[in-house]
Structures are given as structure tokens and as C-alpha cells.
């Protein structure tokens, strides 16, 4: 995807889409925390998920983008919304702000930001500066997953199966 020239101005469409989606993701995340209605929080989280999926798409990982939307946007968040609807949860109440959050949380958050900034500054930027032209095809991903990383993959799926069974046992009424 090269830059699209319209008259004199030079527009770099991937760059514009990147900033739009990044902004959308951050705005969604902030809304998620600030809004008091649970259903709005869930909606904001969906916006974050979709924005991140578009970012994956920009990086050329179509498969990851689609799976991100199917799994997080379509399955997990639907369950969230479902539960909120079922309980008809009202607006959450604010507690008196805890001292712990102010005196420990804020410095910790500041420290975390500092650390992220430090590692970002040290990270090597690719020479071209843009996203990689060729992403990972689903075929290449599958080959990696089922040839090279077969054991961890299967181990993870067994772990998930165990978790599902555990949830079933916990949810079943004791007789």
C-alpha cells in the first residue's frame, strides 16, 4: 500500500487509519473506565477490541484480526453484554476513593509508564518506518502452529478443556 497522491497533498492512508484506530482504542479504554453504566463500559470495550483488530489488519495479519473480532468481539463480549442484560445491572456506585490507590497506585502507574517509555525509546525502529509489506498468511501461521509449536498448542487446548469442565462442575447444582 503506497501513499495515495491527491493533487499536491500527499496522503498516507495506512498512517491515517493507524492514528484513527489508535485514538479510537485509547478513547474506548478511557471511556470504559470513566463511564458508570456497565453496558456502556461493555460497548466501549467492544470498540477497543475492533480498533485493535484493525491495527492487526494494518500490520498485515488478516487471520489474527479476524480471530480477534470473532473471539473477543463476537463471543466473549456478547457473553458480557448478555450477563449485564440478564442481571439488568444499574449504574455502579462510587466508593470513597481509597487511600491505597492514591499513595501506591499512582506512583506505580507512573513507574509503569516510565518503564514502557524507556523500552520504547530503546526499541529498534525498522529502517523503512512503515508496517511490513507482507504479513503472515493464515497458511504460514497454521504451519508454524501445527508443526513447530504443536505440543504447546495442544497443551493449551487441554488446559482450556480442563477449565471448561471445571466451570461446568462448579456451575452444576449440588445434588
Amino acid at each position, binding site marked *: 500500500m503506497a501513499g*495515495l497522491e491527491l493533487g499536491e497533498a500527499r496522503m498516507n492512508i495506512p498512517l491515517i487509519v493507524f492514528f484513527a484506530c489508535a485514538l479510537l482504542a485509547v478513547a474506548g479504554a478511557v471511556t470504559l473506565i470513566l463511564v458508570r453504566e456497565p*453496558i456502556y463500559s461493555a*460497548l466501549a470495550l*467492544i470498540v477497543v477490541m*475492533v480498533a485493535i*483488530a484493525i491495527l492487526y489488519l494494518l500490520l498485515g495479519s*488478516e*487471520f489474527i*484480526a*479476524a*480471530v480477534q*473480532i*470473532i473471539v473477543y*468481539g*463476537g*463471543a466473549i463480549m*456478547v*457473553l458480557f*453484554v*448478555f450477563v*449485564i*442484560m*440478564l442481571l*439488568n445491572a444499574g449504574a455502579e456506585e462510587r466508593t470513597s476513593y481509597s487511600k491505597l490507590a492514591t499513595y501506591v497506585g499512582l506512583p506505580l502507574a507512573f513507574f509503569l509508564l516510565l518503564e514502557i517509555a524507556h523500552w520504547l525509546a530503546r526499541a529498534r525502529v525498522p529502517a523503512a518506518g512503515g508496517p511490513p509489506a507482507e504479513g503472515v*498468511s*493464515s497458511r504460514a501461521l497454521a504451519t508454524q502452529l501445527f508443526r513447530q509449536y504443536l505440543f504447546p498448542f495442544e497443551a493449551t487446548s487441554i488446559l482450556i478443556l480442563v477449565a471448561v469442565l471445571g466451570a461446568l462442575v462448579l456451575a452444576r447444582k449440588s445434588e
Partner: protein
Amino acid sequence: MEFIAQHPVLVVSLGKIIVLLFVLMTALAYLTWFERKVVAHIQSRWGPYYVGPHGLLQPLADGVKFLFKEDVTPPTADRFVYVLAPLLALSLAMTAIALIPFGPPDVRLLGQPVFVVSNVDIGLLFLFAITSIGVYGVALAGWSSNSKYALLGGLRSSAQMISYEVSLTLSVVGVLLLAGTLNFNGIIEGQRGYWWHVLPRWHVFPQLIGFCCYITSAFAETNRVPFDLPEAETELVAGFHTEYSSFKFAMFFMAEYANMITVSCLATILFFGGWLSPFPTEWTWQLYLPGAVLVAIGIYSAFDTVAQMRGIKRLQMSVVTLLALGLGSLCLVPLVAVKIQGPFWFLSKVFLFLFFYVWLRGTLPRFRYDQLMAFGWKLLLPVSLVNLAATAAWLAWSWVRHA
């Protein structure tokens, strides 16, 4: 002109989007007419009759009615989500159509394929991603209306859509194993050829069980009879869209019909060879079939115009006649006939599926809620899992044998 030459992708894509939008809107409108007409004939009625010849202008009248009706918002509704829900439902339903290839990719304009808006490499996954988000339209509509009926309808339909999405996805994986690609063009090209020179190599024959699972789950996904519990009017008034009126209601209606079209297109692509002709290529007369069908419709309507219609309806019907005859004779020109073979077969198959939808609506009663859930989880899911395992085993065996 210079701009067009410099940016063929942009210009052709925009053109395709506008044309597709227009065609889709018209198709949605006339699908309601078609459904009412067919269901009416199943029930020994006439259906829409008065607006235009054979009620052909009824969709237009309905559209105008929806636009000018009072738009009532319940005072206790959550305004933002209440407006968002129908927008979400319709826009997602229409986005999905952009991925559907209506014809072969080698018909090109300025180097761009004409019959598909966007040929995504992982088309099927992308389609599933879009449709999986579609649940929100229904769920949020039910929640935001702040009404018991709407909430219960919304809950029912989200539970139903989540349950049947599992078997829908699993029933398709068998086809994916046979095709070896997620790209729609690749899946269709893989079905080219014939068994014993007559039977087309469509996936429906080896994947008959998969197809049955797919079509059943697809009916449930689109909330249609016999799975239309979200809008069971005897229990829930109109389900999730009880509190919606005017154009917002029309948007849900259009979304439902757009989803029907998407699901039928997907069935055509995955199981019935997409734009491929069912007849062997040696039968060259099939080149003139689209034109012949249109001319036949034209001749019938000409007869109808003269024999049945009076007054303004005679004028309107003669317009239909001229359109059908003109388009039909245009399609008989060999140069045009070659190009429209793909879309003709694709749309014919989709039309058969849509007829099947309407036919079932006129025939089957509705499931009870517990029956619906038991059917989805205890029958459809295991059957599609067994189908998947059997397909995988058969493929592995044939690889071993040929190795």
C-alpha cells in the same frame, strides 16, 4: 479522465459499492414483495394486489409509509443505544455482502474484477467476524427499549445466535478441509469439474450432512421460521423490536432480509459451486439461457398486459414487459452472454435458497424454546462434530493412499 486512469482501484471500487448498494436495496424491497406473494399463494390468498400490477409497486409504497410514519421513542429508553442498535444491525448486515463474489474474477474493468467489491484472502473468516458482531444489534435493541417483551426477545435471540453460531461454524469446516482455502474464489474454483461427466463436483454431495447442519443453523442465525422465537408474536408481541417504529423498525427488517441474502450466498459459494454452471461445458446452448429466461418473462408479461391489465396498470405492466424483453435480447448477444454467465448462475442459486426460506415460513410451525436449545446443542452440534471428524479422517486416508 486522468484521475480515473491514475486510480483505477479507488474509482472502480466506489462504482461497485454504489451499484451494489442500489441493487441490494432494490433486492431487499422486492424480497418482501416476493415473500408476501409466495406465502399468500401457499395460504390460498392473492397477497399484495392493488398497488401496481400484481402489487409490484407495494415495496415502494411500504418504503414511503415507513419514512413518513411517526418515530416514537419510549421515554424510558436509553436513547444512545436505542438509536445505535438498528444502525449496527443494518450496517453490519450490508457490509457482509461486500465480500460475496457474484461472478468469476476474470471479468474485469480497468484491471479490477467487476463482480466482487472486496476479494479478501480469508473471506470466510471475515464474513464470520462481521456476522458474529451482528448479535449486538438484536441484543442491544432488546436491552435499550426498557420493556419486558423486548428484553426477553433480545435475551432469547442472543442465546439462540450464540448457540447456533457454534454449529454453523463447525458445519462449514468440513468444506474448508476439502477446499484447503478460506478465499471464496478458491473455494468456488475447487468445485469445478464433474463426476462421471454429469454430476458437478459441488461440495454438497460429499458434505450432505454438513450442508444440512449449515442450512439449519443458518435459519436459526437469521431468526427465521421455525427458529423465529425472538419475535414469537403470541408470547412476546414482536420480540426485540417491539418498541421500534417507523424507519428504525424498517432498518431491522432490512437487516433481517440482508442476512437472509448473505446466508443464501454463503450456501451457494460453499456447497453449490458459486457462479459455476451445473451443466457440462460441452452444452453450449446454456450460454443463451439467461437471455431466454428474461425473454420468456417478457413474453409472459406482454400477454398479461394485453389480457389482464386495465388503465394505469396496463401502462406499468408494459414498462415491465419492455424492460424484460430489452434486457433479455441484450443478454442474447454472445459478447454479453459470456460475461453474465457467472452472475446468472450465482443469482439463480441464491434465488432458490430464498424461495426455500419463504417456503419453510409458509409450512413449518415454531419450535418451543427448550426444544430449540436441545436441538442446537444435543443434536446439531454432535452431528456437525462427527461430520468434521469423518471428513478429516477420509482426507487423511486418501492422502496416505496417494502418498
